[in-house]
């Protein structure tokens, strides 16, 4: 249903992608630990490579967990399905959209 209103009610999203220029918002969801109380959100260039995203954004955040093991292999999820990002792929190439959530856990 639409908003019932006295007059036209149509205002843009205040989080729309164009407000972030060449960047977009991306969240990381730690699926196998409750140490982080919620997924973490970052602002990242769409053209950022996976390696840079991982090393510059994900790792410094994840390291705050004393049990974080940088050597442990991880699985990644996007849009409800596992995906295997290559280091040289950009976020855009990986299909990561504005505000997408990337899930991760240590591989079993």
């Amino acid at each position, binding site marked *: 249903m*639409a908003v*019932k209103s006295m007059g036209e009610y149509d205002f843009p999203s205040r*989080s729309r992608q164009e407000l972030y220029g060449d960047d977009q918002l991306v*969240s990381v969801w730690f699926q196998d630990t*409750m*140490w982080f109380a919620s*997924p973490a*959100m970052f602002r990242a260039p769409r053209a950022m490579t996976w390696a840079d995203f991982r090393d510059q954004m994900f790792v410094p955040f994840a390291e*705050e967990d004393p049990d974080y093991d940088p050597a442990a292999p991880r699985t990644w999820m996007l849009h409800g399905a596992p995906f295997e990002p290559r280091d040289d792929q950009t976020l855009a190439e990986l299909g990561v959209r504005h505000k997408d*959530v990337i899930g991760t856990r240590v591989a079993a």
Partner: protein
Amino acid sequence: MTLAPENKTKKAKKLSMKARYEALTRGLDWEPSYVEKDEMFPHLDYEGIKIHDWAAWEDPFRLTIDAYCKYQAEKDKRLYAVLDGFAQGQGHLGLTDASYLNAMKIFIQGVTPLEYGAHRHFAYLARHFAGPGPRFAALCQSIDEIRHMQTEIHTLSNYNKYYSGFHNWPEEYDRVWYLSVPKSFFEDALSCGPFEFLIAVGFSFEYLLTNLLFVPFMSGSSFNGDLPTMTFGFSAQSDESRHMTLGLEAIKFLLEQDEANVPIVQGWIDKWFWRSYRVTALVAQMLDYMLPRKVMSWKESFELYFEEQMLGGLFEDLAFYGITPPRHVEDAIKEKEILSHQVYWTLYQFSFAAAFTTSAPSDEHMDWLSQAYPDTFDTHYRPLWEKEKKNIEAGGRHFAPGLPQLCQVCQVPMLFTEPGDATTFAQRESEFEGEIYHTCSNGCQWIFEREPEKYRQAWLPVHQIYQGNCGGPTVPEVLEWYGLQDGDAGEYIGSRDHRNWQAWQGEAAADTATPDETKAGA
């Protein structure tokens, strides 16, 4: 209409309370003839509610202006006497612990501004309703809400002089991330038409949930040596009883006026139950984690004040009109075992950017939590705190080094888990006109999808920080923009309040020779 028998001669000469009230309050309006009635009350149709007879509104309190002023003046006289006495006697030193005040910091930052909003919008109802009965009830509530705002400010003003975190509350309400939770809730209501606002605040917030919000909390103040808060709280609650009555009368009035109103009202109950319930998350953690001396757990108060009184009592009554318990209420019931733990764990790790401090619960406190939450605390939350204890011993202190993903509707970080599964974070995604939006729960997703044009406007603090709209791109710049001062945020142990408290207690103990034994945290 039946006439009440006159049982006392001393009152025989006067009009009865009901007759007097009606004579003084009703009959004041008239059918306009120089302007159209629709022009005079232009906001009453667009929500789809149909009112056939405004005179059917019953106001059980029957308070006239003279009686109102007399009792309210008396209440305030008593309250301000307590505040003055407490301030003069340095009563703050008799609190259980300075950390108790973190609860009150959240209160002035997050609740006091809601009282102001309620003042403004009950004035809106008092302007726009077409019946003098509900207009008068709304106007009373409008000025009652000024009272609540001011008595809260005046109560906490004394603490502000000695403790951190109280000093910049209005600006914080407009800017700080966790305060967008109550702010977005209330502004959602303020942006509604008059009838939805009445159901949102008058009924869902004031009647369904107010007890849950205030009563255990005020008992907590009493238990923690905070006499002024207890006094203002109970004093405000006596007004709340009138407001609850307004809320209940409102819903019955709408349901009785026209059958077509029933599904509209049901939709509002469904929406506003969940919207209000999400705000109570802040209260849940206060009860279980912020009170040094505990009164009752969130779970207990939820069972008592919500499940027993509302689901077991009120909704049985409303079933008569075809109203069912709120949608998603089952999810809320499932959350009662885990809500406070998840919320406090979140505030704990983000309190570096807050106007309150947090600390890990002591062993004693954890034992209390185990007892209060036998099915969940030891399984899910004690291990986190034990890990954090080691982390602290190793020189760490868990602060999340970044920003949380927020729910598009309630604006709480996406900390909630799937109903019945305490270890899987809930993620709901909706798409509207090419953009995706995330919500924390079935309830918030349902609310979003009903009115996506509304919720996409949301000013989400994390998104705004990343747009550079909050003072700058770095955390210190944001904190400066929040107006935070040294001592406002972070860890309680070693904070300015903690150090002062220890020094003051030491001096007081030295002065009085016998330490006050009543204040050892239970």
